[in-house]
């Protein structure tokens, strides 16, 4: 497979996925450049979460090609592990490790996967906690934090692996309204720092502000792909228009 990194840091070609008979992804193609921020929106069940989960192979695609930073995702475990080291992920349900403290949550992967020295990993963890604004929570357990704080720890945990790409799967959907902003602020800062990001979200304000491109999904298909300006003011497809009319009041 001759794939040069210049073509894009993420290359998806005609990605298909079925759950049983249900055709969840119907030929998605997407190319992303380094430093790009792409927001994916669409009604629930449209396949947007499934799609970003194929990018670090939490879901297996059955047809098509996914190449992340020059590494193609196949059944080869080494490739999968390489890609997962380079791709950080933030989940809707946080998925922090409840038996470990915040600091241990963050240092676990650097110590065990990157073989980082514990002292160094601790220093990195503290830097990241400063960055997401909760250094004072380092020695608490996840269960003792609010949802917004937990989600910021998840972001710090992903960043500790120094990923080249960050995936966000509805990061604010499980949060109380007053905590959404603190998470979005961290994500904005991350986007401005040049991180390559794919964000599945319904936060259209965030999309308008930081996205380079917005992608609209429906029925497992990529319906529309546009700049935020065009997407909001001049949507091409009828379905996009309908969707926008329902979520923008």
């Amino acid at each position, binding site marked *: 497979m001759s794939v040069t990194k210049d073509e894009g840091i993420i290359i998806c070609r005609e990605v298909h996925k079925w759950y049983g008979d249900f055709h969840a992804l119907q030929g998605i193609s997407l190319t992303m450049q380094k430093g790009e921020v792409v927001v994916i929106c669409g009604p629930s069940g449209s396949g947007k979460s499934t799609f970003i989960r194929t990018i*670090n192979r*939490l879901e297996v695609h059955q047809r098509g090609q996914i190449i992340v930073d020059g590494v193609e995702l196949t059944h080869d*475990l080494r490739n999968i*592990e390489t890609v*997962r*080291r380079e*791709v*950080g*992920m933030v*989940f809707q*349900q946080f*998925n*922090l*490790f*409840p*038996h*470990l*403290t915040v600091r241990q949550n963050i240092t*676990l*992967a650097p110590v*065990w*996967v990157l073989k980082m020295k514990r002292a160094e990993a601790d220093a990195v963890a503290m830097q990241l906690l400063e960055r997401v604004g909760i250094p*004072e929570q380092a020695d*608490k*357990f*996840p*269960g*003792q934090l*609010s949802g917004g704080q937990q989600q910021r720890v998840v972001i710090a*945990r*992903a960043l*500790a*692996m120094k990923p080249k790409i960050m995936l966000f799967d509805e990061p604010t959907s499980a949060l109380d309204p007053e905590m959404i902003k603190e998470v979005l602020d961290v994500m904005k800062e991350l986007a401005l720092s040049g991180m390559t990001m794919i964000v599945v979200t319904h936060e259209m304000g965030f999309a308008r502000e930081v996205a380079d491109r917005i992608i609209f999904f429906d029925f497992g298909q990529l319906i529309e792909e546009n700049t935020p300006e065009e997407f909001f003011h001049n949507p091409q497809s009828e379905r996009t228009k309908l969707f926008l009319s329902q979520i923008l009041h």
Partner: protein
Amino acid sequence: MRADPPRDTSDQHVDESPPTHPGNSSGWAGGGKNGCAVSKELPPPTERIPVLRWLKQNLFSSWPNAILTLAATALIVAVVYGLGRWALTEARWEVIPANLKLLLVGTYPAGQLWRVWAILYFLGLLTGFAAGRRRGLVRRISLVACAASIALAVLPFPLVTRGWLLGCAGAIAAGYGLGQLAKLARERRWIRRVETTLWILSFPVSLIVLNGVGGFLPVIAGRNQWGFMLNLLGAVVGIGLSLPLGVLLALGRRSKLPAIRIVCTAYIELIRGVPLISLLFMASIMLQLLLPDSFRPDLVIRAMLTITLFSAAYMAENVRGGLQAIPKGQYEAAYAVGLNGALTMILIILPQALRAVIPAIVGQFIALFKDTTLFGFIAILELLNISRSVLGNLEWRGRIFELYVFIGVVFWLLCYSMSYVSRRIEKSLGVGER
């Protein structure tokens, strides 16, 4: 939550201003902000019920209740009185101290008993050392062990035994002192390593010291006649091996590879469907027929392996229960940060799964410990079986109740300790529970 900024006094003024709702004196006028005017909050109601009224309400509320109360009281009094009278006047407790050595270590030669004490001292030293370095549970355990050996030393045992017992307390105290000293050391890492190594080595070393090795320590014959020591050894071997084996079986049963899954499932279901006693009989009699002489392990070892393999099947199901309680998101999060399958299991899934089933696991440990008395049925003189040989002695004929009470107390003390320790561990691990 973020820490609240220091509250200025203006809020207090709000509290003191006339309440917006007449009659609202609870100081809620601060309006939804937390931490407001704690002193003015209404305390929870404390109701003190006089004894007589409590009795009337709970024990004599109606005629049938009153009759039941009286009948139950009479029964309790009769049983306690009967037991008390027997224990204090009729029972001849001398049977216990007179046969204590036989009950606890069986036919282990008196001249070699120092080996048993040496092992106890070594373990005492290690426990004391751990207690010196850490706080909490281990400190409490060593305190109790220390107090227990001093208390036992007060009892009318032979002078030598009392000396040994005091030595036990001394060993724990010495270990504690060393542990405290170790805290001062600058390089603590190798201390921890040495400590862990010693704990791991303590078990095989104990076995070798007890049994003897050719050339250094005389090998002791009659390994199947060591009394209570066999129950303890059986329990330690069983507990130590059945948990890891059970974890492997549980993982095997959930494996994606059909061959592994089928073998593990078959093993678990087969073993769980057969009574332990029949497995022990098989180990004692059938193996003898099947295996050549040179290939046949000692009876005691066969019994211990049997109980381990038996317990592992139950352990596997306990562990599987814990594994099923872990949400899929934990696996996904672990994979997403780059952990491979093995690390995910060891670092993320198993710690949570095992913690969730500590009560079931400890229950299995306790059952295993008590099941070691079944060794008696295959001609192993463990505590229960060897107590029968005491009855064979004319002097102690018919002293069966004293012996069984003693055996019951010994087992209860140890089982209760296990259960207590497990509760403490659960509590100390429960900190970050979601």
